[in-house]
């Protein structure tokens, strides 16, 4: 999907864009406050980065260690090289257990793999149990944010969806009322379900177990009521030691929502008595990303969403405009690895302001990678045509001083003669939702030649 085209739909409704911008920025501010409360915050980011650097440099060793310990713990381990294999494995396990109703907690990996539609096509009912995810499941949409999947939805719209699906009162959009309705609805599903699927936030090589975090308690409710727990994890979720959890858990929730920790931080090491626990380890392009020096640090990501909340483009274009399971700055450096042609426009959906890298708890150089992807994509010939053309024109003008001057003088004249509306069409997407500044009458060069260096004009 072409980001500017997809974003155009979203930004047509200016009050909504402003509302979205504010809602997301509010979370960024909460993050700032939480980070400032920890004097050693920057130190923790350094530790987290160092742990991840070590991890990915011995990823195979740590995965094998994890597998071995997990098996000793009674966990069944599966490996999936891609999304399709992952879905087949999960379905195979469910099938063996004759599971018909599955309760699922939030997992971006299963979104990436398209697990829900796959299972549904096989006749299995999948209920997303995170409230935000249930909302978008009712709406038949994708999450627009990795931490707050329904951040783009207004409460009136959620009220309408619940009226339709849960028979709540028409027009009642009180969040307390709606949450209560969802609680009753989901509780029934939990009690009837015969399997549970979760993601994995951290898998510990040293101990052969893993950690899942939620605020609602929906992951634990599901897995602790049903006889079968399947957890899907990307290969990059590994951390070497249990003590490293101390570092990541101090960073994760604070970066994500400004909470000091999520409500529930659960550690799974052995299946419940009488139940089964399976872990599916998924590659799906990650080991390829590992081979690219410029981009491998994207595997440090702990999916906190902070880079989205701070991104001026994300806030004003919405998560759906990215057309990838992980939107925002981090999604724009992960998606080209999956398909550089399909996602060619995403690394350009950034101002390169660097705010993403400044907030990232594991110190990923997100903005630098965006910049590098632009070069790779342009070299491959996938860059949006207009961009390539303007860049070529620009290159020519900047390297030919006379052309540059003539072009400058012409554009200033044009700025005075033609209405801005007309000029804006030349700049298309950049001026959708904003305006060109007034063009000065004379160039800086003319001004400088006349006034010289001492002028205070």
């Amino acid at each position, binding site marked *: 999907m072409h980001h500017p085209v997809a974003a155009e739909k979203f930004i047509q409704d200016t009050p909504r864009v402003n509302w979205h911008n504010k809602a997301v920025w509010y979370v960024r501010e909460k993050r700032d406050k939480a980070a400032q409360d920890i004097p050693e915050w920057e130190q923790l980011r350094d530790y987290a980065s160092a742990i991840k650097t070590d991890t990915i440099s011995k990823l195979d060793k740590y995965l094998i260690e994890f597998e071995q310990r997990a098996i000793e713990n009674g966990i069944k381990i599966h490996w999936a090289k891609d999304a399709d294999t992952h879905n087949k494995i999960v379905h195979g396990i469910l099938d063996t257990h004759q599971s018909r109703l599955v309760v699922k907690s939030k997992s971006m990996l299963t979104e990436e793999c398209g697990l829900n539609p796959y299972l549904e096509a096989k006749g299995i009912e999948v209920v997303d149990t995170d409230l935000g995810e249930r909302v978008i499941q009712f709406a038949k949409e994708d999450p627009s944010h990795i931490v707050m999947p329904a951040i783009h939805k207004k409460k009136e719209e959620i009220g309408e969806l619940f009226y339709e699906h849960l028979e709540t009162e028409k027009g009642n959009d009180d969040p307390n009322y709606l949450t209560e309705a969802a609680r009753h609805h989901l509780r029934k599903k939990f009690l009837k379900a015969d399997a549970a699927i979760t993601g994995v936030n951290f898998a510990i090589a040293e101990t052969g177990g893993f950690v899942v975090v939620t605020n609602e308690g929906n992951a*634990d409710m599901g897995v*602790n*009521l049903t006889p079968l727990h399947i957890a899907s994890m990307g290969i990059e979720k590994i951390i070497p030691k249990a003590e490293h959890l101390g570092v990541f858990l101090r960073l994760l929730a604070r970066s994500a929502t400004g909470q000091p920790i999520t409500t529930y931080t659960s550690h799974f090491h052995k299946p419940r008595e009488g139940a089964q626990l399976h872990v599916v380890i998924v590659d799906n392009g990650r080991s390829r990303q590992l081979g690219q020096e410029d981009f491998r640090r994207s595997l440090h990501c702990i999916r906190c969403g902070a880079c989205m909340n701070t991104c001026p483009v994300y806030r004003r274009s919405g998560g759906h405009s990215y057309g990838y399971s992980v939107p925002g700055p981090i999604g724009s450096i992960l998606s080209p690895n999956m398909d550089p042609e399909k996602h060619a426009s995403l690394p350009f959906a950034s101002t390169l302001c660097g705010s993403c890298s400044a907030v990232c708890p594991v110190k990923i150089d997100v903005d630098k990678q965006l910049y590098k992807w632009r070069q790779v994509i342009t070299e491959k010939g996938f860059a949006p045509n207009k961009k390539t053309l303007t860049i070529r024109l620009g290159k020519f003008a900047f390297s030919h001083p006379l052309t540059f001057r003539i072009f400058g003088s012409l554009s200033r004249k044009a700025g005075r003669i033609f209405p801005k509306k007309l000029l804006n069409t030349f700049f298309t997407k950049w001026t959708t939702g904003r305006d060109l500044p007034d063009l000065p009458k004379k160039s800086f060069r003319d001004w400088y030649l006349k006034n010289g260096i001492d002028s205070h004009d």
Partner: protein
Amino acid sequence: MVLIPMTDREQILNTIGANKPEEAQPFIMPTVQKEKGVTIEKQFIQMVGHVGGVCIRQHSKQISDMITVRYPHAKKIYSCTKEISSIGFNSENISNPIDLNGVDLAVLQGCFGVAENGAIWISEEEMMHRVLPYIAEHLVILLDHNSIVANMHDAYEQIDLTQVPYGTFISGPSKTADIEQTLVMGAQGPRSHMVILTD
């Protein structure tokens, strides 16, 4: 000779082996300096409030009376502590965890608390049933006031995960802000969360 196709496991591990960068230094966890002058008990009490719970200090002998006063409507109380007895059903009769649906109040013994975030570590041993802390309408956790640590680094020094089949940090009641950022307690699990610090 028959070529055996590589398994996904082999393929993944081989690609990682070929693509991984030069081995980095293993990370040696340094001692993280603690904030000076902070009394951890006070910080813990504050943080439990901050995350939506209530934290009070109570003599062990008075806990039972206090619970009756605070939860007058609780018909089914499932207690895993010696201070409180279960009410309303026989906990030994629970064979399927779904039978715990409808528990009004669960009372658990916490292992230790964490001052920086109000979280309390509870392992499977203290829960009886893994689903109990989530399925109950309200949750009370008893905690020895001497077992509070400063931060998550200290917390992991207390736990040997190889010995805990299942364990969780709980910080406040179940909550969500998925509807227009409005914080709502009791999203799926307990609607309220009380921590009683005991002597």
